[in-house]
């Protein structure tokens, strides 16, 4: 499956997803309460040490931050403009630390384990009128059809390239959406033909 998970056998990989979520919530709140730049940097170094200790490595840690460098640059510029550079550095360091912490959860937990953990969580929602089986089905369908839609988008772009239209988002989006909507009836039929009953499930 396409996901951000990295296989491994560290203590974090072995921890239950629910426990990791709680630990992340606690650590994230802690980071928010830290008073100044030196404290944030100390915590960031500690988080980096966990990356090293779990075998994820510092390159992986860097990969967590790389995609948001542009956002950080814009934010930093805005911070300098609004509040001065020291405040800017403090906020950027805090965001970076939070991202690294959250990365520890995402990198060491399979999507399927997250889904399983959530399905247990959904049972709690039943009294609120939410149907866990419908949520599970929606999640499974989305995971199943993301690659299918990516493939359809690729096919349509390929077809429009012949006509020189592959750069036109309109010429690509309309056929992709029309195909997707036409598929949805067939998929719903297929689900019900296999005995799924949304009212009984």
């Amino acid at each position: 499956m396409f996901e951000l998970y990295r296989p491994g056998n560290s203590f974090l990989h072995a921890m239950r997803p629910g426990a990791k979520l709680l630990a992340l919530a606690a650590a994230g709140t802690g980071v928010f309460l830290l008073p100044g730049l030196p404290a944030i940097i100390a915590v960031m170094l500690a988080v980096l040490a966990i990356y090293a200790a779990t075998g994820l490595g510092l390159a992986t840690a860097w990969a967590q931050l790389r995609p948001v460098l542009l956002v950080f640059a814009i934010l930093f510029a805005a911070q300098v403009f609004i509040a001065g550079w020291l405040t800017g550095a403090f906020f950027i360091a805090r965001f970076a630390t939070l991202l690294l912490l959250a990365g520890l959860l995402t990198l060491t937990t399979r999507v399927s384990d997250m889904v399983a953990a959530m399905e247990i969580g959904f049972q709690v929602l039943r009294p609120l009128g939410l149907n866990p089986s419908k949520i599970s089905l929606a999640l499974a369908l989305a995971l199943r059809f993301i690659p299918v839609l990516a493939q359809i988008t690729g096919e349509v772009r390929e077809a429009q390239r012949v006509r020189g239209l592959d750069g036109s988002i309109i010429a690509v989006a309309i056929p992709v959406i029309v195909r997707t909507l036409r598929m949805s009836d067939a998929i719903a039929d297929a689900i019900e033909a296999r005995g799924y009953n949304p009212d009984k499930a």
Partner: protein
Amino acid sequence: MTSSTITFDGVSHAFGDTPVLRDISLTLAEKRIAVVGANGSGKSTFARMINGLLLPDQGAVSIGGLDTAKDGKAVRRRVGFVFQNPDNQIVFPIVEEDVAFGMKNLKFSKAEIETKTGKMLRRYGLEGHRSHPAHLLSGGQKQLLAISGVLVMDPEVIVFDEPTTLLDLRNKLRVAEAIEALEQTAVVVTHDLDLIADFDRVIVFDEGRILADDAPTPALKAYVEAMSGV
């Protein structure tokens, strides 16, 4: 009458103002039944009525005495449906999860789901892909996975809606072989005349009526003549 006998009794159906089936009555008790006809002839509507995906406007459809309108749930258990495009039929991301879906809906036990999934994947040479994303299978493997997901539910009748239309020759042959090897009654809607050459009975639809209902050779002869306007 056995539990897999399919009966249409005076069935008519329309989509809006367009009639798609006109007063169809027949009894199907053979093991291999083909349904052919031009696009829009009513053959897909006919197929969908066998497992209650569509209910007739007039008349009744029953499977081994179970009325599709009254005993929908029991009919779905008895009749499996394999669609044209396996990409629309495979609804779970991982191969084994998809095979298990129908059995979970029918409340099979965990142990039973486990055993039957393994057995079915071995039967179609998919055991090596058990925990792989379904997306990565070939077209033919996807159709075999779709068939697996239906077979594990122990249907007595399986309806196939153009199962080989989207496949290349090699995959067509694999699916044809899979259909041939089934113990169950199979009703196959198709344009692929090679696929049905050895079937027990061929029904030809034309504009919502039955044009021919015979053994493959005479039925297909009538079909070709009608289509070429001879």
